[in-house]
């Protein structure tokens, strides 16, 4: 830690031509190299397992079984086709796309309305509602998933698409409401006030003025929730018995527990299960930091 802070101070200090400063400049090379050694080590630690699974998914069964050669010879692109066909991804992938799109849209609409009310409309009991949402956020899924399952059976919604989507929306709401509330609270009020003076209704103002301006907040919520929903596993496991309705993570475990598929096919299947969300992450990742910090830190 010491060296890191030192390094920064060194870089911020303008070069002063004194012997001590010159000595410091020389001394700083070590810490800066140590800093980058640490950063690169971290990158390798994160990336090597990912590259390794990619390599494994492209190897032949013999090569995979034999050893540590990381370069697939030859590249077995067919593993992905096999995984796709045997793993039933032509069912699971569209299911997950539907669940993700539907629940993210639901969360965005409901959470932005609630977040707006909690940030902007003054009404008695507002603080209590915010407090209640915070408390509900603490209710852990393991404390309620058995009962959620029973409730959905009672409602006739177990093993249905709509039941799963409703559970996903409800689960994503508390944090999303708090993120949107933080976002609206940080926005200037003038435009809404102008709209109100012009006679626009509250709902009209919300749809035509507030929401378009809230795009950065909405994008951040959408990115975080899309990743959460795509990777959701426990409720997908509990709620579905009909495999034609299952989301992709659940479908993947079906494939894992099926009579021992070959390892390289399993690896290819895993990559198919995460590839859409990894691509999405690569495109949208700069919005994650703003969303997480807006929602979680305020």
């Amino acid at each position, binding site marked *: 830690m010491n060296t890191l802070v030192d390094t920064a101070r060194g870089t911020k200090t303008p070069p002063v031509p004194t012997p001590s400063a010159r000595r410091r400049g020389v001394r700083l090379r070590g810490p800066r190299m140590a800093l980058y050694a*640490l*950063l690169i080590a971290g990158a390798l630690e994160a990336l090597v397992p990912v590259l390794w699974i990619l390599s494994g998914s492209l190897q032949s069964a013999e090569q995979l079984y034999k050893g540590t050669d990381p370069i697939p010879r030859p590249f077995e692109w067919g593993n992905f086709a096999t995984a796709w066909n045997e793993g039933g991804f032509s069912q699971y992938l569209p299911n997950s796309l539907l669940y993700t799109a539907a629940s993210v849209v639901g969360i965005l609409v409901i959470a932005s309305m609630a977040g707006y*009310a909690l940030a902007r409309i003054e009404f008695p009991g507002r603080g209590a509602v915010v407090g209640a949402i915070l408390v509900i956020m603490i209710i852990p899924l393991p*404390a309620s998933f058995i009962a959620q399952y*029973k*409730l959905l059976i009672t409602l006739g919604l177990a093993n249905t698409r709509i039941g799963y989507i409703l559970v996903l929306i*409800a689960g994503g709401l508390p944090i999303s409401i708090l993120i949107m509330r933080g976002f609206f609270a940080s926005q200037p009020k003038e435009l809404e006030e102008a709209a109100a003076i012009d006679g626009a209704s509250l709902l009209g103002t919300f749809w035509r003025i507030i929401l378009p301006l809230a795009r950065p907040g909405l994008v951040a919520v959408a990115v975080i929730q899309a990743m959460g929903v795509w990777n959701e596993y426990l409720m997908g496991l509990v709620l579905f018995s009909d495999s034609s309705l299952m989301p992709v993570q659940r479908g993947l475990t079906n494939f894992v527990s099926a009579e021992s598929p070959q390892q390289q096919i399993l690896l290819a299947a895993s990559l198919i299960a995460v590839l859409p969300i*990894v691509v999405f992450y690569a495109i949208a990742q700069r919005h994650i930091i703003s969303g997480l910090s807006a929602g979680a830190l305020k």
Partner: protein
Amino acid sequence: MRRRSRMLAAGVFLAPALAMIAMFTVVPFVQGILLSFQSWDGVSLDAPYVGLANYRFVMHDTEFWGSMKNAVVFGVVGLFVANAVSIVMALAVHRARRGAAFFRTVYYLPGVFSTVVVGVMFAWFLDPKIGVVNQALKAVGLDGLQHNWLGDPKTALIAVAVVFVWYHWGFGFILFLAGRQDVPQELYEAASLDGAGGWAQFRYVTWPGMSHVTGIVSVLTLLSGLQIFGTVQVLTNGGPAGHTEVPTLDIYQQAFQFSEYGRAAAMSVIFGVCLIVLACVQLWVSRRLGGSTDSRAEKGS
């Protein structure tokens, strides 16, 4: 009148959210408590009340309490190991002049993977015969260290904990990085004018400036460690002989393998109450620790 229209507007805007949360989070939570006093097989329409029988069973269920102990291990590993890595790497990336965006993206990448995929990946890496870990040990002549990492009761829990840290530290990293960026630069300038060295700056500026982030991240990582599910299910399914069993998995198995939904609900209640109490205690502690330092940081800026 104006007040009434504001109430109405607030009601309209909040109704969908409150209805959804009430229906699918609060009602099940309460129903779960009721279910823990019932005996339900998951199929029949009626679930007779059995009083404290489920709780009595769980009290003597050594596997459940073993799983609680393992949850504590994952919680502590998340809280101390993953967070230590997170904060060091966040401060390092904040210092980096080149490649900060690259490192930020790469460090969070494992967190984008699903728990199931992380399980599949590491089950392969740790496989006793074809796993890269053992293959690598053999390649460098350390055959003696080859091991059935997930199959040996002595190493299984450690191996899963390592996988958990690999998967999870990027999450804290992102939040710590955001928190570090919010610490005002002037504080560092003032501190260095006062002659504070690197360690003193960390101790008196960075650490207190990030205390609220530390509080939130601690709660979140502790909770996610305690609630670990998918990775464990795929890697070991709680084995060997329950050595990596965790409460969420135990509850799932009790319900969906043994059709003992009442017992599963009782476990859920016990586990859930522990989680809620822990989260509240931790938030309270971090508020208290953070409160004084926060006001100091505000005065400073």
